[in-house]
């Protein structure tokens, strides 16, 4: 475990380093001169040069890169060109909201997907399996934003149960935060359910054909014990990977859902950064999303250890 953790953290740092290089390179290739963008089309050459010097844009690229990385290490992500605020502060505000949405969506998905997947596997090719599969396919094949629109229409417009969109900070109105969270989290959770359920089902099917399941039956264990105690704990291990992946997807990848629900998260912030050529902000967003990806994968790997004793002791004998 100890060696394993050291190795994993080492790899993570290395990956992060690559991400910074790529992020930096790509954002600098993007067309459009930042100084020109800020000053507008009527700016003089002199004022542009002055601004470039002020922003450090006249230095060689590698110096800019090193400055940027050193800044990152100290938590300084630069200043947003568009908002004229520190990037770290801007991201910090949205980070919590995106994490909240992603966590809620993943929790909803897991809550429905695990039991459905288990039932589908146990009743393979029977009616419950067919229903679960159909449910899964519908969830997968219709885009997330459409679910968002459907949910808004049904639960907000027709039934009036929840607000149509927006966000209220919990410090002001915790109940409001929750009511605003329900629809976007459910829409996203519904789409994620399908993937997690399919994975649970196939993983359970595999485990249910293992020899130790046959032995558990031969010992006289009831179906309930065989499925929930003997099979599920083994079957859940590959599911964790999918859940971790879905979580990071829900965190950074669903810009369109944030748009539909006016949820001011990282996704919308990234979109704004791209539209306004706000390079420091864009860089910051990419780095944070990458970091969340890596952390959720690390969490998944550590969870393996919790469920699978072979991994728990595997690294340190």
């Amino acid at each position: 475990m100890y060696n394993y953790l050291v190795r994993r953290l080492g790899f993570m740092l290395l990956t992060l380093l690559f991400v910074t290089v790529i992020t930096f390179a790509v954002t600098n290739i993007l067309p459009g001169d930042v100084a020109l963008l800020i000053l507008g089309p009527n700016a003089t050459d002199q004022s542009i040069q002055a601004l470039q010097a002020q922003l450090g844009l006249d230095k060689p690229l590698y110096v800019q890169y090193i400055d940027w990385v050193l800044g990152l290490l100290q938590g300084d992500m630069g200043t947003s060109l568009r908002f004229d605020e520190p990037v770290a502060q801007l991201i910090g505000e949205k980070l919590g909201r995106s994490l909240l949405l992603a966590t809620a969506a993943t929790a909803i998905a897991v809550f429905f997907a695990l039991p459905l997947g288990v039932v589908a596997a146990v009743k393979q090719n029977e009616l419950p399996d067919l229903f679960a599969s159909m449910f899964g396919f519908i969830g997968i094949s219709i885009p997330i934003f459409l679910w968002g629109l459907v949910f808004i229409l049904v639960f907000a417009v027709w039934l009036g149960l929840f607000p149509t969109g927006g966000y209220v900070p919990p410090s002001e109105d915790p109940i409001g935060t929750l009511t605003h969270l329900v629809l976007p989290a459910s829409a996203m959770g519904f789409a994620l359910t399908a993937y997690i359920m399919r994975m649970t089902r196939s993983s359970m099917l595999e485990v249910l054909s293992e020899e130790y399941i046959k032995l558990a039956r031969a010992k006289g264990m009831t179906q309930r014990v065989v499925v929930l105690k003997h099979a599920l704990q083994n079957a859940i291990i590959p599911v964790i990977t999918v859940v971790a992946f879905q979580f990071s997807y829900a965190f950074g990848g669903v810009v369109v859902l944030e748009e539909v629900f006016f949820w001011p998260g990282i996704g919308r912030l990234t979109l704004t950064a791209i539209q306004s050529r706000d390079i420091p902000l864009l860089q910051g967003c990419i780095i944070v999303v990458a970091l969340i990806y890596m952390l959720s994968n690390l969490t998944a790997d550590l969870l393996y250890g919790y469920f699978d004793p072979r991994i728990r002791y595997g690294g340190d004998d």
Partner: protein
Amino acid sequence: MSTTTPTHDDPSSSSPLLEVRNLRTQFHTESGTVVAANDVSFSLDAGETMGLVGESGAGKSVTARSLLQLIDPPGEIAGGEVIFEGENLLDYSEKQIQRVRGNKIALVPQDPMSSLNPVLTVGEQIIETITHHQGMERDEARAQAIDAMTDVGIPDAAERIDDYPHEFSGGMRQRVLIAIGLSCQPDLIIADEPTTALDVTTQAKILDLLNELQEEKGMGILMITHNLGVVAQTCDTVGVMYAGNLVETAEMHELFRHPQHPYTRGLIDSIPQIDTAYDELPTLDGAMPDLTDLPQGCNFAPRCEYATDACRTGGDPALEPAGPGSSRAACIRTDEIDLRQGYVPDDVERTEKQVDRSGDPLFEVKNLKKYFSAGDGVIGNLSLSRNGGGIPKLERRYVKAVDGISFDIYEGETVGLVGESGCGKSTVARTALKLLEPTDGEVYFDGQPMHEMGDSEVRSLRREMQMVFQDPHSSLNPRKTVGQIVGRAMEKHDIATGEEKRQRVRELLERVGLSASAAGKYPHEFSGGQQQRIAIAHALAVEPKLIVCDEPVSALDVSVQAQILNLLNEIQAEFGLSYLFISHNIGVVRHICDRLAVMYLGKIVEFGSIEQVFDTPFHPYTESLLSAVPHADPTRKSERIFLEGSVPSPLDPPSGCPFQTRCPKKIGEECETVVPDLEEKEAGTGHYLSCHLSIEEMSEHAGFVQSEQAEQSEAQHGD
């Protein structure tokens, strides 16, 4: 075992523990209904061990699992009765049978590596059985579980109960499985190939344990096995199964002394004995019929040398009393034919194979080493360790899979590598062929230094060196026809193309005992034995000089195994091939090899001709290996040498002699500190031993060879 003589023939005895009547289990498949167990009837008494033997597909496991209604769809139990404690278990509902499973009748499964749940502690897996069936408190159940673990010989049971299965060796896991079986003190244990996945030395210990436990607790055991050696060691009565039918039942000694069914005779003869020299192994030609397409007459008639027209047309015969004893056989000619005389190798005609060792060897390996990084390091094999606390240190950790091996193979010779799992024998083969990059050492093929060659040179040399693997099913490309598989090798090495290639493919397929039409079929259309023939044809296609056979018959049934071994011997004589033959089965090795290297923990401990290795002086490890092989002849019970503990981890091998931690003949400090050299103990014999003992000491106590005659006569007298 003599205390548990069978009593079921005694008319005065009460009803048997288990009585199976006309059991029929079938599977519905796309190609029709397969009757996997057909009209099976037998009975078993308390304290009796009954063996159920037969080749794969004979229906042994299906029969055993049917007893507990453990047949999954598409299978179903179509008829019959299983009378246990006066009630028919087949009438029980799922809820009722659950109370019998694991409680009154326990199943000990085959594979210790996959039969334990990896995420539950072994203790939990025993305790849940006890609490479930006996409604005990956890503390009480835990104490009973520790008792069961102690009973099966798991050391420090109280401490190990909270360990997970992966922390136990294969043999210990099998003991855990037996402990699970024993935990509720069942009346009957169904042991489904309980030792098949284990090494011989471990197998010997487990069989001994089962015998002891039975004497102590008096339960009945239904022992399912394909190994007649195991039957001879453990059983009181035997049922032989073939194509879903019980074809013979007999008292164990009677079965071996006077088999009543020709199939039984063939099974007994097919097993290569470690103390007999053969020119050619007796075989049972052909294979078990396809269960969807059974023959008109007796199922065995197509393979039976005694079959007449009546056998071929008269339907499948029923099991009826046969012979003077209590035997029953399903054979209409059993009274006419005498099967008492087994196969006797013809000493006169035995042609001693001459290997010319005067020139240079074809293949020579010098001081070969292959170290693997331990795989748990931070980068490669660099590992952080905090031994004794303090600041973590970087250190290198290796698994020394092969640690300084030297041997040579001459033209037309077969050299064997034998040892238990994990000793590094397969790694030797792969490293010597440069399929794995050696860590150190020299390899010469035909005088050319392979260890100095680049990849492309080695690739062109591969034409001369082919490999045949254990599992033909996974080594043949399932999407290519047999003709394409064999022909591709010829094309790749520019041997033949076009019509010439196809002609040669047909010839080769016929040479390995298949029909030429096999070329158009796909591998999955063949049985395991036939697939192995295809693999051999594939190896022969490029006209190699050396074929490395890595456990080529281990996955095959005994009757098929003998066919393949004979084929390998024939093509060696015909093409002048050399073999490097890797096996864990010392009986097989004896039959096919000219010289043999015995490996332990990455090192060769003994190397010499077959006669030298199988006779005194023995390396203590060779001696224990030989003694552990179960004899397929109950009259030759050998005095087994049980090794302490299990094979040490190659990550942390013992100091001095690698075998010193388990050696029954360890002499003291020298063994612990000085690594013995592999040396000729008598100059000029070519018999190399790696041991600190003197020749005299290594020749002592070879009881299992010398006292055989005496025991044999004694045993026969005793009957």
